[in-house]
C-alpha cells in the first residue's frame, strides 16, 4: 500500500544518482539532463550575442573576445556536443513516446548511437570551423 501518512515529503521522487547501476541508458539519461543545463546557459549566451551586437563595436568585440578565448572555445565545444546529443536524444525519445524501442538491447543500441552521433557531428562541425577560419 502506498504510504500516504507522511504528507508532502512522502510523495514519490525521481530516482537519484546513487541508486542507479551504471549502464548506457542511465548514462544517456544523466548526460541528457547535464546537456539540458548546459544548453540553458547556451540559450542565454545566444541572447547575449544579439545584445552585444545591438550594443555596438566594443561590446561585440568583448563578446567575441570572451567566446574566442580558450575557455570560451571549450564552452562552445561542450555546447556543440550537448546540442547534437540532445537532437539525437529527442529523436530517440519521440520513438519512445510512440511505444517503440524499449527493448533493453534496442535502448542500449540507440543510446550508444546517440553518443556516437554527437561525437562525430561535433568533430565534423569543429573541423569545418577550422577549415573555414571560424576558429
Amino acid at each position, binding site marked *: 500500500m502506498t504510504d500516504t501518512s507522511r504528507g508532502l*515529503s512522502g510523495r514519490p*521522487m525521481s530516482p537519484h544518482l546513487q541508486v542507479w547501476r551504471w549502464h548506457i541508458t542511465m548514462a544517456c539519461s544523466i548526460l541528457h539532463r547535464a546537456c539540458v543545463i548546459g544548453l540553458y546557459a547556451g540559450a*542565454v549566451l545566444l541572447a547575449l550575442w544579439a*545584445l552585444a551586437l545591438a550594443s555596438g563595436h566594443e561590446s561585440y568585440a568583448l563578446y567575441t573576445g570572451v567566446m574566442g578565448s580558450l575557455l570560451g572555445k571549450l564552452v562552445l565545444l561542450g555546447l556543440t556536443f550537448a546540442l547534437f546529443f540532445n537532437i539525437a536524444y529527442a529523436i530517440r525519445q*519521440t520513438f519512445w513516446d510512440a511505444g517503440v524501442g524499449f527493448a533493453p538491447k534496442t535502448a542500449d543500441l540507440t543510446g550508444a548511437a546517440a553518443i556516437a552521433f554527437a561525437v562525430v557531428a561535433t568533430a565534423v562541425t569543429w573541423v569545418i*570551423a577550422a577549415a573555414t577560419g571560424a576558429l
Partner: protein
Amino acid sequence: MAELNSERFRTPLSRARGTGAARHGVSHFMTERVSGIALIPLSLWGVFAGLKLAAGDFEGAAVWLSSPLNAVLLGLLLIAALIHLQGAVQVVIEDYIHKFTTKSALVILNIFVCVLSGFLGIFSILKVALTGAF
C-alpha cells in the same frame, strides 16, 4: 464527468490535502515535444549560421542579421529554445530540489531568466535588423 472519474481513485486523505496532480502534465508534454521538433531544424541552422558568423566580424554579423530571413529564424530559434529549456529545467528543479521555498524560488528564477533572455534577445535582434548595429 471527467472530474468525477478522476476523483474516484483518490484516497480521502489525498483529497483533503488537495495534493493531487496539477493537471498541467499533457500541456507540458506537448510543449516540450512540439518545441523539441521545431528546434531540430532551427538549431541545425543555428550551427550553420554560427560557423558563418564566427568566421566574420562585427560588420559581417550586422549585415547578416539585417536579412529578414536570418532575423526571423534567429528569433524563432531563441524563443523555441527558451520555451523548451524553461520547461526542461523546471522538471529538473522539481525532481531534485525538495525544499518547498528553495524549489519555488528556483522555478520562479527559471521563468525570469528565460523571459528576460527572450525579451533582451528579441529586442536586440529587431534593433539590429531594423536600425542597424552601431
